[in-house]
């Protein structure tokens, strides 16, 4: 466990050193403060649209960060040649993969927390604060979704370079978020081979819509039942574990050619 945490801490230090998270946080803050200037027919105290757009961008930015941070870790080590001294240490490949994933996930979750903090501040300025229990639920589920996204990107990066892994990860997770919830509707129109393909897709990819509590947060609907939240978190843990397992399988027998340009 210590070795895993050490690897994770290295990911933390790297990500903090890079500017990605700060740029996204700044962009989010600028956007939200620009939205505050919208004149809603001279009426005051309107906050719903700020929350909606803020949460949308928080999800979008966290998604971008999760894929890019996770997808670059392993390829970067290979490209820089640091994978050799790393694996020469008493460190299994499983620990390496899990450590990288843990570092990526926790740092992205922390950045997401900062995004939420900005949105909470802006909502508070509009005198329409979030309910703390609903917000906690929304954040927990969001982190669970990010765990899966990081695991998917990590799995892809075991066999691809950063560009290919990140592109593929964006496509897969984007499709899972946007298309999967529509498949039960699409299946009323499709049959035969296409219908079967949609069915396979529906059950193969993770259902990110389960982790999305934005509507509850925006419309102040109160917290969802905690038993349901727990079930979704367990589902998230299972999916993340499954993709991490895939990552380990993809990495455990990978051979590195010293001196090869990756």
């Amino acid at each position: 466990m210590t070795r895993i945490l050490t690897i994770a801490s290295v990911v933390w230090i790297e990500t903090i050193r890079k500017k990605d998270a700060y740029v996204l946080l700044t962009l989010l803050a600028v956007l939200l403060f620009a939205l505050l200037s919208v004149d809603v027919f001279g009426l005051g105290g309107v906050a719903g649209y700020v929350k909606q757009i803020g949460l949308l961008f928080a999800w979008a930015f966290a998604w971008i960060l999760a894929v890019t941070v996770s997808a670059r870790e392993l390829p970067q080590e290979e490209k820089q040649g640091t994978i050799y001294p790393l694996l020469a240490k008493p460190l299994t490949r499983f620990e390496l993969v899990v450590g990288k994933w843990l570092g990526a996930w926790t740092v992205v979750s922390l950045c997401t927390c900062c995004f939420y903090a900005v949105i909470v501040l802006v909502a508070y300025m509009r005198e329409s604060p979030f309910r703390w229990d609903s917000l906690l639920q929304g954040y927990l589920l969001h982190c669970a979704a990010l765990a899966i996204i990081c695991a998917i990107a990590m799995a892809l990066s075991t066999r691809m370079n950063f560009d290919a892994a990140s592109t593929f990860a964006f496509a897969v997770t984007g499709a899972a978020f946007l298309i999967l919830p529509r498949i039960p509707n699409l299946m009323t129109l499709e049959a035969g081979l296409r219908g079967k393909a949609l069915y396979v897709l529906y059950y193969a990819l993770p259902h990110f819509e389960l982790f999305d509590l934005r509507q509850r947060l925006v419309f102040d609907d109160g917290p969802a039942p905690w038993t349901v939240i727990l079930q979704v978190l367990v589902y998230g843990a299972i999916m993340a574990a499954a993709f991490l397992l895939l990552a380990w399988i993809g990495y455990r027998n990978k051979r590195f050619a010293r001196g090869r340009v990756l």
Partner: protein
Amino acid sequence: MKSAPAAGTFLPWIAVLSLLVAGAAMSARLAESAVASGSQIPSSIAEQLLGNSTKALAEYSYYKMADQFYHKGQDHYEETAFVDFFQRMKEKTAPAGIVHLKGNEMKESLAWMRMAMSLDPGNVEYAIVASYWLERELGRSDLAFQALDEAAALNPGSYLVHIGRGRLLAKTNRKAECRRAFETALKYWPGTSDPANEDVRMHRREILSYLAILAELDGDLGRAAAYLKATINMFPQKSEAVRKRLAQVENGGTPKESLLQTWNALLRENSYECDHGHEDHAGEHEHEDGNTHE
């Protein structure tokens, strides 16, 4: 040894994200006012940058979001091929029940209408819907008129704006101004719209209905009859009730009580209440007073 941070890898992302944020931020700004009649509507920065995609964004994004806010986040019912564990779980975490925004809450939906108006100032329907809700739910007829004035300034030749004004003036019992608004609407009809289009023809019918009843309320039976005849000429197959009214007008006028009933019925039309059917609301929903799901 580690190489320098690959900042170049992120530059394209940063550029794309900056453009996205700038576009979203600019689209939330108000459009500039028109300065001369007959000139093209001066376009906002968003319209100049994004072109016709602003219209699509206004309709499919902001207007739809206004509808979603009106339904407090609940989706409308759509047929599915199957219902499974994932959908049942999603239902448990989605906003529960259907209620429509009421009173002051309507401000939340109006924010999206405002953004739709800013992004597509040429579509006066947004201003008309916004003015309806400003008057009906918030009781702010002053702001409702302001929204319509803004739309009129940006679309001087639009008869729809004058119909919107006329409806609002009718609701606020300003009959003389109401008559003038509908006369202006009639003068501008059909504008750039296709006069053979069924919706456009129904607009003219509405104008004539209001003018006929206002003329009768003013005691000008000749003009009332002329408007009723014009309605019958437009819709010869569907004007049974209008023919009856014409007969009454030609015989000395409709009885006052019946006239007021017709006037009140006219005011109740053209509402922007939820027009989704009972079965279109997913999950449980409340029927509010006056909300007659058809």
